[in-house]
């Protein structure tokens, strides 16, 4: 019987069936669930690594040692993992190795919209692109076959709509693939110039062989739809589904299942059969450029552009000129941006930072939401770990006076990912920066994954925990202290003192995420109508549980978790514990 699986769940199913033994990943939307589902199979060793580079290296090591291995990441994670991956392309593998990378066109949950296909081309690695959950499972199996047949890591490229859509999947049984024999082979695995020069030639040969396979294999790069249509569509991934939905039998499709290397003959032969040929692809015009470079006349980005997601509507509008008429509400509506949850430990610290009018170098996580009104505390946010090193750069550029009014904020998981190296830079190069580690005891935004600071592994079993205080001291930071962000005046005092110090310092701002099951909430608070003067001071912390009705503060008991930050905002003692009368 077919099962309704999330794309990511189907990738995990494919890994399981293919006999994968070792999985190491760092969470990142929209890729996270692959590893969470893989961890549910007892035959697979699965772990959260501190970052994507480590994860990729674990998978490379496992593959060289003879096991089928996997690592998964979001598009920007592939940048972190790029270093080992580009050279693993040279070493090749022993047991099969598969990498899944999930792009986020439309940036539902990301800081950029990069197209990971560029990495496959640059690293000279084969890349498969599924268009639904069935193909997620099937291509995971195919990827291991290709990996071992051509001695190469294989990338599976996903996108948000494939990763986070559910569709029906025909599953199979697991094949038990034994760990292959490991033989010392420095010519293949020790990449120093003499060996790497030889291996580069092997990589180029491999790409030629893979191109041949892409040209001749009937299983992939399939022609589907109406062969007598006037329109030919060259496409891949979820864009194929949009084109099929919009055009149906009005077109014939060349669906490119393998997007690196791309076939040439197959594309030429397909294109020659149609009056007009369109390339339908999201983000960059990679297939289009390939077609044009090989003398195939196609229409692509001039019609579709390279911003955001495509959809069946866009394809129908651009190719058929068809526009759907719909009901409109016909009014400007207030937006609904994401917010820090009621009881979020980040609320208190961002209130303090804003109150002190500090420059705040930000980072990637739930706390990036501290950039939004009314807290509006962040000045910059670029990538994982950048808050710490960017603050150091700002302070070196503008001097100590500026440094006395600037901090970095970074989460516990992000600090371990790549913030700690920035902190070492600060200590080593005589910086005076003040770094705030917002330790909420979990990796929050991606949906509560454990990390090396929490003391639990991917299965929730107890394990060694990084001691952040000791780690910061060991990096050479002389001043390390801990505060509870729910205590506003104490937190403010700590920030002021550390900024005044002419030495680098770390404040560990520690309070667990309010959504953790282990966190016990206090009873909801209420605002006393008599005592409330309607001054709106409590609104400055941007808590979604507090609103103003008839010029008085009202606290929604269904949302309030009793954290008490608002109590400290009220000069009139109007916010009280216990039920409203």
């Amino acid at each position: 019987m077919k099962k309704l699986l999330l794309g990511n769940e189907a990738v995990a199913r494919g890994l399981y069936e293919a006999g994968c033994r070792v999985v190491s990943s760092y969470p990142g939307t929209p890729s996270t669930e692959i590893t969470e589902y893989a961890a549910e199979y007892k035959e697979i060793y699965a772990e959260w690594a501190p970052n994507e580079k480590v994860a990729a290296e674990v998978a490379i090591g496992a593959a060289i040692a003879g096991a089928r291995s996997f690592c998964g990441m979001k598009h920007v994670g592939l940048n972190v993992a790029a270093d080992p991956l580009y050279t693993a392309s040279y070493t090749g593998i022993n047991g099969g190795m598969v990498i899944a990378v999930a792009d986020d066109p439309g940036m539902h949950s990301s800081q950029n919209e990069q197209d990971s296909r560029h990495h496959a081309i640059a690293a000279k690695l084969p890349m498969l692109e599924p268009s639904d959950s069935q193909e997620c499972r099937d291509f995971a199996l195919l990827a291991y076959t290709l990996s071992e047949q051509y001695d190469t890591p294989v990338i599976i490229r996903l996108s948000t709509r494939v990763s986070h859509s559910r569709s029906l999947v025909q599953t199979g049984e697991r094949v038990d693939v034994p760990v292959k024999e490991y033989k010392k082979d420095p010519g293949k695995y020790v990449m120093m110039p003499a060996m790497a020069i030889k291996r580069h030639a092997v990589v180029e040969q491999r790409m030629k062989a893979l191109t041949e396979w892409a040209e001749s294999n009937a299983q992939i790069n399939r022609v589907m739809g109406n062969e007598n249509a006037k329109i030919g569509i060259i496409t891949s991934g979820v864009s194929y589904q949009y084109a099929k939905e919009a055009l149906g039998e009005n077109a014939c499709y060349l669906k490119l299942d393998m997007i690196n290397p791309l076939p040439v003959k197959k594309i030429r032969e397909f294109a020659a059969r149609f009056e007009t040929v369109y390339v339908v692809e999201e983000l960059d015009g990679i297939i289009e450029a390939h077609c044009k470079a090989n003398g195939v006349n196609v229409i692509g980005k001039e019609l579709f552009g390279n911003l955001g997601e495509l959809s069946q509507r866009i394809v129908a509008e651009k190719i058929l000129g068809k526009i759907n008429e719909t009901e409109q509400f016909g009014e400007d509506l207030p937006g609904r941006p994401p917010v820090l949850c009621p009881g979020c430990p980040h609320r208190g610290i961002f209130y303090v930072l804003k109150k002190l009018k500090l420059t705040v170098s930000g980072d990637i996580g739930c706390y990036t939401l501290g950039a939004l009104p009314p807290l509006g505390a962040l000045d910059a946010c670029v990538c994982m770990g950048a808050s710490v090193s960017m603050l150091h750069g700002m302070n070196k550029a503008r001097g100590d006076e500026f440094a006395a009014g600037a901090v970095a904020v970074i989460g516990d998981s992000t600090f371990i990912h790549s913030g700690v190296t920035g902190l070492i830079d600060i200590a080593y190069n005589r910086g005076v920066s003040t770094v705030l580690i917002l330790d909420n005891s979990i990796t929050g935004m991606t949906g509560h994954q454990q990390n090396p600071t929490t003391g639990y592994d991917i299965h929730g079993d107890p394990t060694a925990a990084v001691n952040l205080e000791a780690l910061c001291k060991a990096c050479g930071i002389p001043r390390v202290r801990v505060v509870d962000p729910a205590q506003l005046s104490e937190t403010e005092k700590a920030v002021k003192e550390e900024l005044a110090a002419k030495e680098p310092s770390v404040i560990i701002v520690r309070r667990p995420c309010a959504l953790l099951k282990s966190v016990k909430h206090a009873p909801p608070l209420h605002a006393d109508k008599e005592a409330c003067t309607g001054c709106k001071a409590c609104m400055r912390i941007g808590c979604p549980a507090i609103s103003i009705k008839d010029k008085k503060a009202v606290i929604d008991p269904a949302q309030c978790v009793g954290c008490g930050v608002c109590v400290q905002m009220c000069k009139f003692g109007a916010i009280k514990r216990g039920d409203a009368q």
Partner: protein
Amino acid sequence: MKKELNVIIVGVGGQGTLLASRLLGNALISSGYDIKVSEVHGMSQRGGSVVTYVRAGKEVASPIIERGGADIMLAFEPLEAARWLSYLKKGGRIIVNTGKIDPMPVITGASEYPEGIIEKLAGKNIDLTVTDALSLAKEAGSVKAVNVVLMGILATGTDIPLEVWEQSVNETVPERFLELNLKAFRMGYEQ
């Protein structure tokens, strides 16, 4: 059995729209449809505007629903109903829960929550059902069952039999909340 059914579920992150889409998906599979469900994970789940698409047919290609493509809209919150209205087909069915949730721009006073959304919706070319799902959920035993109450109301307009829906509730919710959710579903269904 209808040829195809496209349902858009809109609300605020944390309201339980994902569970509702799974419940609907399971019922549609049991009825013999091919289906695709597209969800939102990550940042918008933190109290932002969220949308889930559920598509059923003989063979579904795209996982998303576009403007003018939904046969039914299930709106967990009035402002979200207004925001996503253009996704509904003309004459399409819309079920709106009356419970308002102020978005942050309203909380901070930067904008006002629009007045009279329900009245304005009633003037559109749509088949409107308005419901106070929170009261029904409370009656069923938990404020958290709003999503299942709303699914019960949605179920009445489909040709899927009640047994199939109840089996789907059974497959979707944790066992210890089964009785509560079945009660909530029935309360919606009998509205």
